[in-house]
Each structure stands twice: as C-alpha cells, then as structure tokens.
C-alpha cells in the first residue's frame, strides 16, 4: 500500500494575521478605515485617562467657542459646546459610550438572536414556531415604543439603552442564523455526526454554530453602524441616552439646534459617527472580499511569471 503525503505546503490560509495584514495594505481605503477605527478604539479605551475631566468641566465663559483656535488650549481646537466644554474632549470620552453601547447591543443581539435562530432552524418542535412568531412580533414592534417602555419602566441607563437596541436588532440575527442552519443541517458532516450518535445539542454547538458564526459576524459589522445611527435617532427623539451620560449621537442631537449658528457642535460628532460607520462598512466589504475565494485575488500581489 502506498503512503500518500499531502501537498508539500498548505496553501496560505486567509486567517493568518500576516496574510490578512498584507491583504489590508493592498486596499488603501480599507487600510485607512482600519487605522481610523484603531484610533477610535484606542480613544475609547484610553480617552478618559487622556483628557481627564475636561469633557465634563463647565466653561460657561467659553460657550459655543469656535473651532481652530488654540487660545484656550489645544483641547479647544474643535471648539466648545453649549456649556463651554471642549468638543475634542467630549468626542474622545463619548467614543467610549458610543462604541461600548453599540458593541454591547450588537453582541447581545447576536448572542440571543443567533442562539434562538440555531434552535429555530435545527428543531421543528413547537418552540421553533413560537420563536419565529416572536421574531415577527419584534420586527413589527416599533423601536420607539420599546425605547419609551424601557425608559419608563426600567429608568434611563446605559444598560437599558443597550437592551432596547439589542432587542430591535435581534430578528436580523435570528433569521440569518435560522436560514443558515436550515442549509447546514442538510450537510453531510451533520449527517455524519448524527450517524455517530451525537446529540442535537452537540451538533448545534460543535458542528453548526461555528459555521454560522462568520456570517453573523459579517452582519454585525454593518449592524454596528446601524446601531450607532439608531442610537442617535433615539437621542433625536429624546428617548436615547440621557444626560449627564452622552454619546456622539446625543451630541449631534443636542447640537442640531445650533447648526445655523454654531455648526461645530453637531458637525464634529456627526463626522465622527459618519467616519466610524463608513470605516466599518468599508472594512466589512474588505472582509467579504477576503472571504470570497472568487474575489480574494483582488487583494493579492499577483506577481506574474517571467516571460
């Protein structure tokens, strides 16, 4: 009997860090997006330590200070808001709430929605139907009403805002996960596991969930952007985060009345939101290209043979 060895070297796996980095440098836009997001994340983590309490210190004498002047110190370079607090400092500190809320909401809805979707897709018992009807209900339940109910019954807090945003985004994950499971459970390796005697729980957790996850993660990148925007829309309607807590969305919402007279108050946080969501979208496009074997070559070096 012949011993057959696998091909000499395993092909470059599009999961290893070095390869991904190389792909990233080939897409300048994605690279810029990644760098921007890295800065924002850093700001969110280090922000409060960087600027101290500058973000909440009152400066009633610096109300609506115009940007690009260094007279009051570098921290005022983007101007000051209606209470004279430096916008730069508030952007840095606000990044934490903004990204934190979005991340927590996306994670929670992915976790809950994904789990329910796995169950609803794998099983055909009564509770699968119940889950689907529940998803229908949540889909047509106005998020504003939910926001108000939560705000009233549970009180204004960041956790409750996360609950609202997570619940409203949940059906997306639920439906996607379910659709994936419906397809995956017909795959042969699932049959193989069943033939081995694996229990449904094991099949779902060990065999199906790891394959559903990448799809959900891809959605979550775009959803992250959606959540930031929904959060700012809630702020606009007065149902979002409540002072003294703030996010970029709340900064835009509160500054919107000044667009005609002190544009910078709403402009900078609006720009921050826009660049962040734009970067996320660009990066998720890039990730899709990486994941697609048909398109991956676009990010590769493509060195031609000598002629």
């Amino acid at each position: 009997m012949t011993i057959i060895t696998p091909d000499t070297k395993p092909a470059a796996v599009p999961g290893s860090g070095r390869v991904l980095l190389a792909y990233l440098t080939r897409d300048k836009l994605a690279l810029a997006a990644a760098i921007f997001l890295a800065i924002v994340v850093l700001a969110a983590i280090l922000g409060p330590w960087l600027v101290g309490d500058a973000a909440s210190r009152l400066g009633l004498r610096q109300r609506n200070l115009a940007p690009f002047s260094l007279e009051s110190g570098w921290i005022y370079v983007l101007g000051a808001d209606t209470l004279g607090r430096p916008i730069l400092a508030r952007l840095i500190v606000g990044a934490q709430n903004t990204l934190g809320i979005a991340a927590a909401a996306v994670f929670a809805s992915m976790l809950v929605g994904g789990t329910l979707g796995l169950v609803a897709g794998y099983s055909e018992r009564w509770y699968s139907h119940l889950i689907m009807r529940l998803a229908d209900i949540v889909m047509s339940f106005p998020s504003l009403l939910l926001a108000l109910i939560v705000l009233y019954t549970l009180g204004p807090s960041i956790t409750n805002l996360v609950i609202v945003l997570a619940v409203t985004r949940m059906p997306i994950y639920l439906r996607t996960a379910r659709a994936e499971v419906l397809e995956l459970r017909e795959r042969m390796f699932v049959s193989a596991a069943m033939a081995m005697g694996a229990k449904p729980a094991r099949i779902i957790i060990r065999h199906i969930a790891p394959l559903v996850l990448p799809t959900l993660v891809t959605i979550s990148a775009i959803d992250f952007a959606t959540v930031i925007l929904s959060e700012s829309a809630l702020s606009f309607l007065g149902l979002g985060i409540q002072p003294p807590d703030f996010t970029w969305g709340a900064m835009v919402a509160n500054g919107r009345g000044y667009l005609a007279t002190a544009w910078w108050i709403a402009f900078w946080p609006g720009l921050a939101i826009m660049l962040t969501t734009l970067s996320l979208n660009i990066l998720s496009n890039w990730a899709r290209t990486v994941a697609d074997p048909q398109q991956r070559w676009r990010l590769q070096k493509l060195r031609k043979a000598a002629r």
Partner: protein
Amino acid sequence: MIAYLGRRASHSILSVIGLLTLVFFLTRLTGDPSALYLPLDSTAEARADFARLNGLDQPIYWQFLEYLRDLLQLDFGQSLRQNRSAIEVALEAFPETLKLAVVAITLSTALAILVGSLAAARPGSLFDRIASLVSLAGASAPDFWVAIVGILVFAVGLELLPTSGTGSWTHWIMPIFVLMLRPFGLLVQVVRGAMLSALASPYIKTARAKGLSRRKIIFGHALRNSLLPVVTVAGDLATSLINGAVVVESIFGWPGIGKLMIDSIIQRDFAVVQSTILVTATAIFILNIAIDLLYAVLDPRIRY
C-alpha cells in the same frame, strides 16, 4: 400556493394578535395618561372623572377584554388626544408615510441597481470605488443631521427648495432624498455583492461561450439572478421605513404615521398607539407576503 398564502396569512394574524396584546399591556406600564391630559393643578375629582370617562378606572385585564370585544366589532377605541376614532387617525396618517416609503424605496432600489451593477461590471475601477464610497458615506450619516443641514443649505441658503411641509413636488425632494440615503447606500452594496457572485456563476460562462455582448451578460443574465437578495434587503428596508420614517416626518412636517406614533407614545394615547401598530404591522405582514410572492416571480425554481 393558496394553501401557502393561507398559512402565511394565519401566521400573520397570529403575530398581529400577539403584537397587539403585548403592546396593550406594555404601554400601560408606562404610566397613567391622566397626568398628561389634565392640567398639572387638576383636582383629584377631575382625575377620577377622566379615568372614568376613558375606562381607565377598570382593572387592566378588564380593559383588555373590553378592547378585544370592541375589536371584534371593528371599534378600535377613541383617541384621547384627538377626540375621534383612533383607527381613523391612524388610517389618515398611513398613506402619507406609504407615499414617502414607496417613492423612496422604489427610487433607491432602481438607482442602486443601476449604480451597483455598473460598479460590479468593473470591480476595482474608479467608478466602483467612488460609487461605493459615496453611497456608503450617505448611509453613514445620522439622517436628522443631513435633513437639517439640507434645509439650511437648500432652503435657507440657496433658496432652491421649500424648507418643509407638503404641497408641490418640490416639497418631496428633500424628504425623499434623506429617506433614500441609507437604503441606497446599503442596496448599492447588496447589488454589487450579488452581481459579483452572479458574474462568477457558471451560467455566465455559458453566456460568454454563446457570444453574448457584455451588456447583455451584465443586465440580462447576472442582474436578473442578483435580484433575489436585493428584494430581500429592500423589503427589510421598506419595513423599517413604514415603521420609522419618524425623523423625516418630524423634521419636514410630514403628517405620517411615524410622527403620529411617537406623539401618541409620548402622550400615552393608547388607542392610537394600538391602531397605528395594527395598521403598520398589517402593512408589514402584507409586504412580507408580497415579497415571498415576488421571489416566486423572480426565481421560477421557487414554488409554494
């Protein structure tokens, strides 16, 4: 087919009933409307009168049973705020939102299909990059921010468009534009992605082997096969527009159902909240069924 429609309809009705029940009890957790409807210095007696007049003095399960009984007689309750039938209020506002949503979704889908397929035809080209960047940037900005800046620039600064309100077709331009931004941005990406994968499909090889022109391959073969995911996403976006054109309606003074909903919610006008949800949820479920039927039209392999 008919069996399928029947099943979908019964699921939808079940969901609507579940939704209304949930809304009924949840909204009543948000406090006593009498505090909002009577002046702050009203007497306890006036409050009791108010509760009695509006049936709020009954236990909540009794109120719910009465609501159900009235529903069966197609009585959807009275608006506390507007002194008239709640369903009438909701049905009056709904077409206004529907008009906006239909125009915005149709336009953005059509535009996105055009831009997305042109971008996918030459992936990586300058057009592709600019189209992606611009459409995504539009989809990334808070809509109320865009709306207010738009008014300040186009109505106040350039005096090209009316600030807000309804009337001539010029009143439509800004609200539609703002409503289109996000759907358009997302749809361009969906179209582009679906087109790229369709263009990599085997049947495109066949079309090329047949000697079809590039235009025919892109718009005849690839596009037709890319429409399914586009319809799915456009449907989801339409759903969210039906529910949530509230920002645009509120800023532009468009008397739609989103604005009605938020006003009723804040004012605890329960009957109107329930009626608007009944109307929008019904519309959403009809939309979903219509989308399923559209799938079957677009893809002959799908049969119910």
